[in-house]
């Protein structure tokens, strides 16, 4: 079995890439995908830790995270569509009506 730390490092890398994506991308769907990437990174951490600890709680957690991710995807994409219907755009820059 590969060293736990490597998995955790990979997960950290993926998490960071996801963060960068959230912070730099403009398209709401891409941003959402980046968030999914972050969640996946967390999942990897969980599974790796679960494996290391020899207890399955972490994997159960991952299962729930996936469920939540699915639910979020459904709601999120519905929100995007709703937003798009009004604004003809899915750029988060265009979500700027309310400020200050």
């Amino acid at each position, binding site marked *: 079995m590969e060293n736990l730390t490597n998995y955790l490092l990979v997960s950290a890398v993926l998490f960071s890439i996801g963060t960068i994506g959230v912070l730099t991308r403009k398209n709401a769907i891409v941003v959402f995908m980046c968030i999914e990437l972050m969640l996946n990174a967390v999942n990897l951490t969980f599974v790796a830790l679960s494996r290391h600890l020899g207890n399955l709680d972490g994997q159960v*957690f991952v299962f729930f995270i996936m469920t*939540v991710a699915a639910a979020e995807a459904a709601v*999120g994409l519905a929100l995007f569509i709703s937003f798009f219907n009004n604004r003809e755009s899915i750029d988060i820059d265009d979500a700027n009506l309310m400020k200050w």
Partner: protein
Amino acid sequence: MDINVAQLFQTINLATIMPEIILSVMAMALLLVNVFVPSKSKGYLAWLSLAGLVAAGYTAATGWGLNIPSFSGSVVLDNFAIFFKLIFVVAAGLTVLISDQYMEREGCNQGELYPLILFTTVGMMLMASGTDMMTIFLGLELMSISLYVLAGFNRANIKSNESGLKYFLLGAFSTGFLLYGMALVYGATGTTRIAKIAEAAAKMGAPDTMLLIGALLILTGFAFKIAAVPFHMWTPDVYEGAPTPITALMSTGPKAAGFAAFLRMFLVAFPVMKADWSDLIWIMAVLTMTVGNIIALRQDNIKRMLAYSSIAHAGYALVGFAAANTTGTAGILFYMLTYAFMNIGAFAVVVVLGKQGESNGNVQDFAGLAHKRPALAAIMTLFLFSLAGIPPTAGFIGKFYLFSAAVQEGYVWLAIIGVLNSAASVYYYLRVMVFMYMKPAEEEFGWVKVTAPITLALVVAGVATLALGIVPSYLLQLAETAVKLI
């Protein structure tokens, strides 16, 4: 490894989650009723939801003092949870009462609103009851996902869309950090059960970096939910755009739920690291109060103003958290309850005064209200004074306990900053009153109609705000009892 079903069921006590069950069943029933009862008016759904909420609240209340863990320790119905559940019931109950008129006016009166409100309430309740990170996480997500929908509920309104979008993206983003934190805590302790985390943490002696950072990341996740600086940025925009009743709910219920989970995690699981996180919360409290208040000074849109004020109120509550003593935590509980009353009360008035398309929501539009509608202005005044923390209202007693807690723990400066903030906040609350009372009426406020549910909401909120300011003893004692068990 065989599953001993009998043993499994011994750990399950449905009474523990009876409020959640009632609300879930009610929500589903409402979904069906909404489909099968053809009625233009959806007002009856509000009353049904209210019935469900009251039932859930009553059920929860009957469990007072029993302290039943269930589902092999992933959930508990203790006084702490019950107190918060009552807060949620109040928040959701008042929200459903003020929703119908608003949704009718905005033309988005869909029956699904009420089930979603109930679902989000279930989520909050689970957050308060959860003794396992997973339960808390799922409760949080159930609450959030329903709220994302609710925030964007007024599909025809651009602001509502934007509000939903922002809330969703930022909420999901913060979930990432929260989960990462939970993962680290899991890694550091090998469990997701709060009680076991506490055991493991206590065993470590000196707090481990992994555990500490995990806790801090969890803190940021909750800080997002309670809108603490610097995780507050979503609040004004989302509050402004969301349908007003939903804003009312968002500013009270989820905030309280956030505090519930926050408190339970930190006071039960991480008390050993108190020295580390209480400083952080100290700073966050100061920043949160200050930023919220000084930006609120410059707002014209009343919803946005109340949003910033809501940030500030989170800051006050964090003062109690920083103190982290019984007075402080009980103060938070009490404050969240009173905040639910007074803030939703204020939003109810905003709802009543609003015009179609979310217009008429500026402070200036309140001009002369007192001359045309004195009762409405008077009750708004009561809520605003309570928000400002002026006796004899509930808001004052709440703040008094929070700041007292800080003083008790020796955080005198925190209390001083808190009261100075309070004083500054008076300005923008007064500003509303200035417009209501001291400016001539530009309109006749002819469209303003106070329907029966809203009247009920206003009366309940008003009476509670005043009563909790004059005779708060009983509820304070309850809050005290509630926080002693964790």
